[in-house]
């Protein structure tokens, strides 16, 4: 820090130093990811002989083909979508309404509600997972909803826990945001005799588009990256979401790490794409909770 002190007077050399340092850090940060991509392009036999840190003799996309067809990644992507899309929509819907009720409807006990919802999201999942697992095995579901005939090992079970666990954070962020919307807008509607639902759906929600976009981006990433819930609450290998299915690429006795690298890259790809496309929303989502209105 002190090294940067006289930056204003002798800007040049310090600027160079600053850039050198940041470039070094940035490269160091990108390196592991680059390494994974590199390893996934090389045959196992070659890296076993030369190590991962070596010049390539041959490059191939075979591992991507293998991960795609042999490990049936498309099916697991689909599983992820079956879980994440409904969970995301439900979370945002439930959270926005609860936030509206807390921030705008002046219901009794709103503060307590907000604390309960927010604190629920901060707990480590392991604190509740043992009884949850038991509960899930005990709740029966009709066959058309779950072929395991229980909440355990069903898509619905995973959707529900994602919603229940994540919506607290969204309520907190959205309630803070809604408080910054000028009261006059809904006041006017109230005079016109608008119902609660109308004030929520027609008047408040459209104003919340930026925060909804930010939360959707963030929650998509978190739900997509989930590993634990599926690990504990699912048992059928063919219903696993893609992040947990990555473990299947690991052999019982022998693991082809290059194949695993290709799988990792494929699994990471959707979140990396979302991040590149919705960069602004992603950062906004992460910082919304911290710089409250």
């Amino acid at each position, binding site marked *: *820090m*002190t090294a940067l*002190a*006289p930056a*204003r007077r002798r800007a040049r050399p310090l600027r160079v130093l*600053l*850039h050198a340092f940041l*470039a070094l*850090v940035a*490269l160091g*940060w*990108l390196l592991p*990811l680059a*390494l*994974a991509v590199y390893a996934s392009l090389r045959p196992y036999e070659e*890296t076993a002989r030369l*190590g*991962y840190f070596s010049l390539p003799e041959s490059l191939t996309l075979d591992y991507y083909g293998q991960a795609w067809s042999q490990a049936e990644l498309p099916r697991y992507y689909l599983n992820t979508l079956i879980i994440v899309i409904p969970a995301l929509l439900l979370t945002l819907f*439930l959270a926005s309404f*609860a936030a509206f009720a807390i921030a705008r409807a002046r219901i009794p006990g709103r*503060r307590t509600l907000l604390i309960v*919802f927010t*604190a*629920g999201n*901060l707990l*480590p*999942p*392991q*604190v*509740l*997972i043992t*009884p*949850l697992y*038991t*509960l899930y095995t005990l709740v029966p579901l009709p066959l058309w909803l779950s072929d395991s005939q229980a909440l355990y090992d069903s898509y619905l079970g995973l959707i529900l*826990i994602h919603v229940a*666990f994540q*919506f*607290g954070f969204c309520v907190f962020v959205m309630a803070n945001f809604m408080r910054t919307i000028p009261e006059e807008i809904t006041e006017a509607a*109230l005079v016109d005799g608008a119902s*609660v*639902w109308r004030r929520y759906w027609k008047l408040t929600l459209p104003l919340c588009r930026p925060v909804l976009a930010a939360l959707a981006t963030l929650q998509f990433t978190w739900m997509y*990256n*989930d*590993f*634990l819930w599926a*690990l*504990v609450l699912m048992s059928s290998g063919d219903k696993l979401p893609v992040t*947990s299915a990555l473990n299947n690429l690991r052999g019982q006795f022998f693991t082809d790490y290059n194949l*695993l*690298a290709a799988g990792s890259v494929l699994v*990471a790809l959707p*979140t*990396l794409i*979302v*991040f590149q496309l919705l960069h602004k929303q992603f*950062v906004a989502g*992460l*910082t919304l909770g*911290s710089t409250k209105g």
Partner: protein
Amino acid sequence: MAVKTRRYSARDVTVLVIGLGVAVIASVGLVWGPTLASVVLSATDWNGFGPIEWVGGRNYGDLAGEYPPFWSAVRNNVLWLGFLGLVATPFGLFCAVLLDRRLRLSRFYQSALYLPVVLSLAVVGFIAQLVYSTDYGVLNAVTGLSVDWLGDRSVNIWVVMVAAAWRHVGYVMIIYLAGLKAVDPALKEAAAIDGANEAQTFFRVVFPTLRPVNVIVLVITVIEALRAFDIVYAINKGRNGLELLSVLVTENIVGEASRIGFGSAIAVVLLVISLGFIVTYLSQLFREER
């Protein structure tokens, strides 16, 4: 804001009750209920089937006295917290401070730093294996060593923490960067006019105004340290030196022996630690609001 006395129609009340009711049921039924059940079950020796017998505090006694992984898990969780809190978080803040100025390529540096944030910790765990592998790994190839980084009990927790920090730094940096951008530039100008150098300006003027952000980062750091699970599980299922409290809880469900009561006791230890921080955090948050 004048609080008006409002009368809701019967339909409005119904909508509110249903909407909030569903939210409360989800939160209580799937989060708080099971949390409470963990506390209750921790005093039993239930195995998931058959009758439930009360054993009082015996599980906790066994945990402390006859279950060696428990103490290595506690030690690892403390190390994890210390490493994230004392190394990764300050480094994230440092990067945020460096990046909080007009800088060419700033966007590139930022993107590189928080790219790992969007990766799942399971993927981070797999990438770590490429770097740390004994025979083929990059670390040994570059340094010329032949250390079994992930297998050696005395070093593996450290290198895994580095991998976790890889992800944590970017997270912290984004949050601090947003906090720094919100600092009134007039403050810095005033300090500069008074002859303060950049370090003085930061520590005396800017840092104190970041207090709310600091609290949030602290909580994120603690929560991340207590939640740490995916990365060690992806590497070796959290064994052989990589024990964590979260892994021990999970092992008692998905492992061979389903010891619900015993697993719950570990969960309660985790709960007590995290509740301490959650209560501090929330009381701070809601006090400021008033």
